[in-house]
């Protein structure tokens, strides 16, 4: 009987995995909560827009378009759009099977969606990441967006978030976001990279051959830089948005020069008029599904930012469960695709000795090296909490402020767990279930416990804010309906 592979996520990683598993001869069910494949990178326009030239908004569109048609039209592929995995049900201990995959099919957060259960022989998890945004005073004002939100709105539905936008944070993602805003007709006041010029140059310059091997990426980034230059948009390093101000919405951003550890250089504050501020300080992998599947995590740049641990075959520590893409490390779309292709081939029962795998493994290894370089070039500076004021909201859902967190941490000092802090302040207990503030709260508590901000803590187990047995909301009515079993 043909092997059944379920792939969760149809971004660059998941689409690659599906394609390779099909090539290996497997039967594939590809699920994504979005209506179209593409993930964050190749986010497609809605059909209702009837766009004649969608490729204009994308890099590598033609190859993507061919791939997605081949995969979704393949006789052995079931493509399930608008399908959210809300739970993974692990098999009995000792049983070497991947978890059963519980999904809901229908419009986002709708009622009465169809419940289905899939029982794969192999599972590929490729759910991607979302922006990590550090708090600063005013980051909860309407008009402050993550950079990813601006990107998703511009690319995915042609909505531009403001007229005059400040883009700030850390990492190369700032560039495509600024480029999309310009393309969509906004003016970009400035692009601010918090890392100092020296730190960024050191990170990017040390081993240029790794960069060259990501040729697609290098060319793409150069294109964005040229666009910024054409529009005379300043790109400043060692500068960050440290405050957003306005009456009920953003009216201005306060920026300041930063030292290498992201402490503010006093007296360098500047006020910029803007109606939108877009920030990203890195990416947080969406770990709830891997955690639910029982996959071990590995430490990232800080203890609060782990990734899924995978071996040379993209296999996680959970039986039959592979992981690919930004859940294993942040290295951009080409690296995600390479990981997906490898994971899918092996998950689909393809021969580990197949000659094509040599090249694929090499590409995947280049991707991993690139991820390590990116992380080294754009670390979050340890002194960023210096931006915070006592009243700055840290948990957006519960509006827990920095002072309340510090108080709770001090009360808890001497053994009390992160859980006590959580219950005391409610930080991380709101609707987003700590997706946004989880790593930040854990980091602030760790620093607080270690004394001076910036000094690394020794041996303190951080809270693991990634445990969410219900990965996506399900309604009581839907839960009451028995699922339709599908093979």
């Amino acid at each position, binding site marked *: 009987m043909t092997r059944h592979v379920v792939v969760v996520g149809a971004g660059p990683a998941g689409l690659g995995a599906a394609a390779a598993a099909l090539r290996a001869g497997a039967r594939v069910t590809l699920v994504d909560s979005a209506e179209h494949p593409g993930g964050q990178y190749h986010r497609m326009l809605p059909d209702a827009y009837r766009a004649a030239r969608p490729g204009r908004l994308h890099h590598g569109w033609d190859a993507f378009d061919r791939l997605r048609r081949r995969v979704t039209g393949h006789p052995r592929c079931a493509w399930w759009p608008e399908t959210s995995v809300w739970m993974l049900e692990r098999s009995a201990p000792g049983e070497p099977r991947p978890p059963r995959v519980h999904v809901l099919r229908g419009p*986002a957060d709708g009622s009465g969606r169809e419940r289905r259960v899939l029982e794969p022989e192999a599972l590929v998890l490729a759910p991607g990441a979302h922006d990590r945004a550090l708090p600063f005073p005013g980051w909860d004002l309407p008009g402050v967006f993550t950079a990813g939100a601006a990107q998703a709105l511009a690319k995915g539905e042609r909505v531009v978030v403001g007229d005059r936008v400040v883009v700030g944070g850390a990492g190369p993602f700032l560039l495509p976001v600024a480029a999309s805003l310009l393309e969509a007709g906004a003016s970009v006041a400035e692009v601010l990279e918090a890392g100092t010029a020296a730190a960024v140059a050191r990170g990017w310059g040390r081993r240029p051959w790794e960069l060259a091997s990501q040729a697609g990426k290098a060319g793409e980034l150069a294109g964005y830089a040229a666009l910024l230059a054409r529009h005379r948009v300043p790109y400043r390093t060692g500068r960050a948005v440290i405050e957003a101000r306005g009456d009920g919405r953003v009216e201005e951003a306060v920026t300041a020069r930063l030292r290498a550890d992201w402490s503010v250089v006093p007296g360098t504050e500047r006020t910029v008029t803007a109606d939108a501020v877009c920030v990203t300080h890195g990416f947080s992998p969406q770990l709830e599904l891997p955690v639910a599947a029982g996959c071990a995590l590995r430490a990232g740049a800080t203890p609060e930012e782990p990734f899924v641990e995978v071996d040379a075959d993209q296999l996680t520590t959970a039986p039959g469960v592979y992981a690919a893409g930004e859940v294993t490390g942040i290295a951009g779309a080409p690296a995600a695709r390479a990981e997906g292709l490898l994971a899918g081939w092996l998950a689909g029962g393809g021969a580990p000795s197949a000659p094509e795998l040599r090249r694929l493994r090499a590409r995947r290894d280049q991707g991993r090296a690139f991820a390590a370089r990116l992380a080294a070039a754009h670390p979050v500076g340890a002194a960023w909490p210096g931006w915070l004021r006592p009243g700055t909201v840290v948990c957006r859902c519960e509006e827990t402020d920095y002072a309340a967190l510090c108080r709770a941490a001090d009360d808890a000092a001497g053994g009390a767990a992160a859980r006590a802090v959580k219950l005391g302040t409610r930080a991380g207990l709101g609707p987003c279930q700590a997706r946004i503030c989880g790593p930040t709260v854990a980091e602030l508590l760790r620093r607080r416990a270690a004394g001076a901000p910036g000094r690394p803590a020794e041996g303190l187990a951080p809270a693991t804010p990634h445990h969410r047995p219900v990965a996506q909301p399900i309604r009581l009515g839907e839960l009451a309906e028995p699922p339709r079993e599908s093979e």
Partner: protein
Amino acid sequence: MSPRLVPASADAAGRRPDVPLRITVDGVPYNGAAGQTIAGVLLAAGRRSWRNGPSGAPRGVFCGIGACFDCLVTVNGDRDVRACRRRAADGDAVTTQSRAADSADPAGTDGGER
């Protein structure tokens, strides 16, 4: 100064003319284009916030991709729908939600069904 939809006629992606749709938010009509999310319709109409946090603080779109739950609305009676992920359908009756203690929102706390 406000967010907006790139006009179809000026769109490099070569969009055909928009197919109009209309939704209501707390009874007030908003015009949008088929394909937009509910958040997209509201933003393009210049509205940046529609939900209130526990202190009454305004919330709208933050993450744009379904991670932050800032944008929750009630759609045709279904609470806690992420406006950034739900496509607007012509005639949708959207009501806003609030977690503020003194709000008129009957259920008071969103996220309650999870």
